[in-house]
């Protein structure tokens, strides 16, 4: 019967020593963990956790399917080898423990024997080998490739070496076990890696075996003891962070009420005690991989903002108690964030960098620490209800020569077309809304606009940090929308789209909100809108962060572009959920960038490098930022920047004779 003896050749005295050492290791590990947990309790209460099935699914997805982790090829494979190796070895050790203590009742060899034993053997052997390879890959990455965002201290290398040594000595022990126990030779084939070692160890004594055991065991116990004292803490914390993640979807900020402010006298994240326990815990889940910083557009543009350092700085700050001030995060870093959520999307442990950044912004704005053009934009937003500071009476100037119906209380329409402030006032966005309108008319959609009754959704106010200005605008808009019984709303701006779709429900505004590309796609699918595949120019597409990454819409724009062009879409490398921000989000549209620090410049270079003649966009702010950057770096042959709707209209007009131009000529498409 294939099996093995537990504590083979380890004397009872030595077993007692082993148990004492194990206890010590568990105490050191537990103490480190409890020490961190105490710090989490400095925060506001842990948010309520409900809907467990959904959460377990999410945990399984992130932990076992490595959903986020495998977004990086090398690091993803490396992590999978280490994770599954440690996971399987952990289970294996538990099986051995169950056998060992069960033996007190059921007699020796009651469980860990026969084919089950052999199955365990081969599994443990292979996953152990995986762990060894994974750890080696980690060491190579750390000391040969040295990704700069990974960060490096002596402890990082020491722990990896410790893990590597613990695993390697495990195989030595396995080899020694086979070599020293003739009974096991018969099924040594189930330990392929262990056998490799045993081949070299024939004739060793049981004393040598015990010696190897005494090298292996302290190494393993040291790994366990070291877990809470470095980035390896994520082993415990990340699963808890993931399963208890906030219910708010990405990009949705938590509202605060005036009553709360009056009660607590606090707004936003001014010190550690203003964060909640989940947020503090999530910092301990950070394993410092640096993916957040790698994808940060502000960081890439040479700004001080470094999302990983924000998390690490705050984590360090936790040790100073609840009253430690978040002023450790510099103004320069804080205001550089475009809220593009690239960091949030990449983070394998689901840290919400943007929630933290916007929370600190909220605090600083309330403290009167906002200056400059962003402050001006908010003042204009507050008095004119749009960040351009233009009068509402000019909101329909773009439509002077088009026949656009205003919403009437007694007329039902299929959709309400939300123009947005950019669409109303910004010349390039006006061209987009004109194109959309013409497409809607062509598809015989009954629609209407709010005209002067429209006001900013409040998005810039919320992202910059004036939550109450946001709420004031949101409530006013909700009252207008409910007044006209709006149900389906289409927007041309992903920021309006996101705010109305995902954040207005916080204030009782529940509407079906569609981005124009989604609605136009629907019209084509229903056969109501026919776009001739007539354009012959190569096109690339720049995904807007708030459409693609935050709201997951990447298909509709591509369907539309493929429906217009004879040439398949030329894709840029960073696309869909990995799209690279134009630099306008998070209120950055209203702040100054020095000419060489515009995130849009990098993006423009990428888009130009595709060789496409046209860069299609789906966001008025991307259109401005990408457009300006392309003009700056593109030279004579710079591609044109057009909204998808404009391209569609172009495709329509390419085949149909043009209607006579209106006298003003405004908004004509080039």
């Amino acid at each position, binding site marked *: 019967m294939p099996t093995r003896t537990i504590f083979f050749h380890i004397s009872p005295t030595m077993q007692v020593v082993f148990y004492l050492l194990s206890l010590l290791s568990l105490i050191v590990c537990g103490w480190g963990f409890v020490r961190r947990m105490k710090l989490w309790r400095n925060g506001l209460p842990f948010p309520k956790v409900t809907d467990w099935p959904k959460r377990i699914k999410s945990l399984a997805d992130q932990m076992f399917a490595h959903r986020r982790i495998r977004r990086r090829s090398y690091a993803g494979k490396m992590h999978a080898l280490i994770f599954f190796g440690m996971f399987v070895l952990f289970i294996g050790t538990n099986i051995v423990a169950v056998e060992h203590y069960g033996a007190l009742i059921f007699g020796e060899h009651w469980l860990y024997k026969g084919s089950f034993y052999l199955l365990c053997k081969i599994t443990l052997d292979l996953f152990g080998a995986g762990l060894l390879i994974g750890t080696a890959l980690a060491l190579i990455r750390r000391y040969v490739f040295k990704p700069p965002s990974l960060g490096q201290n002596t402890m990082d290398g020491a722990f990896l070496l410790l893990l590597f040594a613990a695993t390697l000595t495990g195989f030595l022990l396995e080899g020694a076990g086979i070599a020293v126990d003739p009974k096991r030779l018969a099924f040594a084939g189930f330990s392929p890696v262990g056998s490799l070692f045993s081949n070299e160890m024939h004739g060793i004594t049981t004393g040598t075996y015990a010696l190897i055991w005494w090298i292996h065991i302290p190494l393993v116990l040291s790994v366990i003891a070291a877990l809470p004292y470095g980035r390896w803490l994520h082993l415990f914390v990340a699963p808890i962070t993931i399963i208890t993640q906030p219910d708010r979807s990405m990009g949705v900020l938590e509202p605060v009420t*005036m009553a709360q402010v009056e009660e607590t006298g606090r707004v936003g994240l001014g010190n550690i005690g203003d964060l909640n326990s989940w947020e503090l815990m999530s910092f301990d889940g950070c394993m410092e991989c640096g993916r957040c910083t790698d994808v940060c557009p502000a960081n890439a543009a040479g700004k001080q903002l470094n999302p990983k350092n924000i998390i690490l700085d705050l984590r360090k700050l936790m040790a100073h108690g609840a009253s430690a001030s978040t002023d450790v995060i510099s103004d320069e870093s804080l205001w550089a964030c475009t809220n593009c959520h690239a960091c949030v999307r990449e983070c394998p442990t689901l840290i919400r960098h943007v929630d933290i950044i916007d929370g600190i912004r909220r605090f600083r704005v309330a403290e*009167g620490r906002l200056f400059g053009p962003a*402050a001006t934009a908010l003042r204009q937003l507050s008095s004119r209800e749009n960040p351009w500071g233009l009068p509402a009476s000019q909101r329909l100037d773009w439509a002077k020569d088009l026949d656009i119906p205003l919403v009437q209380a007694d007329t039902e329409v299929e959709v309400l077309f939300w123009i947005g402030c950019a669409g109303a006032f910004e010349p390039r966005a006006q061209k987009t809304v004109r194109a959309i309108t013409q497409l809607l008319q062509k598809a015989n959609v009954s629609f209407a606009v709010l005209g002067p009754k429209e006001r900013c959704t409040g998005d810039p106010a919320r992202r910059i940090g*004036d939550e*109450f200005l946001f709420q004031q605008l949101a409530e006013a808009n909700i009252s207008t929308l409910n007044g006209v019984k709006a149900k389906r709303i289409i927007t041309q701006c992903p920021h309006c789209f996101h705010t109305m779709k995902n954040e207005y429900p916080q204030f009782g505004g529940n509407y079906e909100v569609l981005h124009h590309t989604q609605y136009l796609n629907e019209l084509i699918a229903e056969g109501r809108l026919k776009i001739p595949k007539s354009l012959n120019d190569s096109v690339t597409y720049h995904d807007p962060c708030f459409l693609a990454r935050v709201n997951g819409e990447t298909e509709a724009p591509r369907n539309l572009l493929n429906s217009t062009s004879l040439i398949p879409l030329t894709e840029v490398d960073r696309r869909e959920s990995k799209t690279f921000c134009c630099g306008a989000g998070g209120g950055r549209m209203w702040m100054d960038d020095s000419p060489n620090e515009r995130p849009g410049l990098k993006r423009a270079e990428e888009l130009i490098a595709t060789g496409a003649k046209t860069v299609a966009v789906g966001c008025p702010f991307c259109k401005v930022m990408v457009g300006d950057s392309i003009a700056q770096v593109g030279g004579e042959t710079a591609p044109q920047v057009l909204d998808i709707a404009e391209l569609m209209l172009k495709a329509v007009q390419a085949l149909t004779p043009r209607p006579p131009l209106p006298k003003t000529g405004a908004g004509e498409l080039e």
Partner: protein
Amino acid sequence: MKILVPIKRVPDPYGRIRLTSDGSIDASDIKWVINPFDEIALEEAVRIREQGAEVEIVAVIIGEAVCEEQLRTALAMGADRGIFVEFNSPADPGIISFLLAAVFKSVNPDIVLMGKQGIDDDFSQTGQRLAARLNLPQATFASKIEIVSNGSAARVAREVDAGRETLEVKLPAVITTDLRLNEPRYVALPAIIKARSKPVNRVNTSEYGSIPALQISVIKREVPLPRKGGRKVGSVDELITALRDEAKVIA
């Protein structure tokens, strides 16, 4: 050091002023704010304090009960306490400078820091008249203020027609602020709520003796004519002719 910052309630500069049919200002749609130049003065006072000096900032507003709103905003911006002089009659720079002089005497500040003009009627007289009434040195249209000589004087860069002039004034003095001095901070609602606990001293004008008579009367209000569109000219010669013969701006 004590800084007195007089502020004025004015219509929001981003808003549009409409007249009613009888020619008075249509107040129904107006949002009221602190006069932007006064906001700059207050910001400067806060910055002087933030540079580390021991400074008490006292904001004063003169007007009807509704003006308290702007006084609260001033407290939210950083004033330590407020003085609210309730005055319900029409006023002009003569009256306001008289009342401010009375406030000055009760507060005894080292500096009166105020906007160079109100953006509503644009008189640009109150600071100067106040200095004259108190017989104090004045530095108007400041674009840079430095406190020097251990707090006994201020070095002020002024925006004047010929360029920039730097004066040193002995304190106490009246300094009026230009647009270039600073960019005021943004005041959000929570700051205003938090500032509610700051003290506001209400003063009745009867304490100040007989108030001078109004010297300015409003005859008529008119909305400016809409701007006429320009036109394109074909050549430089045509432009010169137009500038010389039509616009008469060159000889």
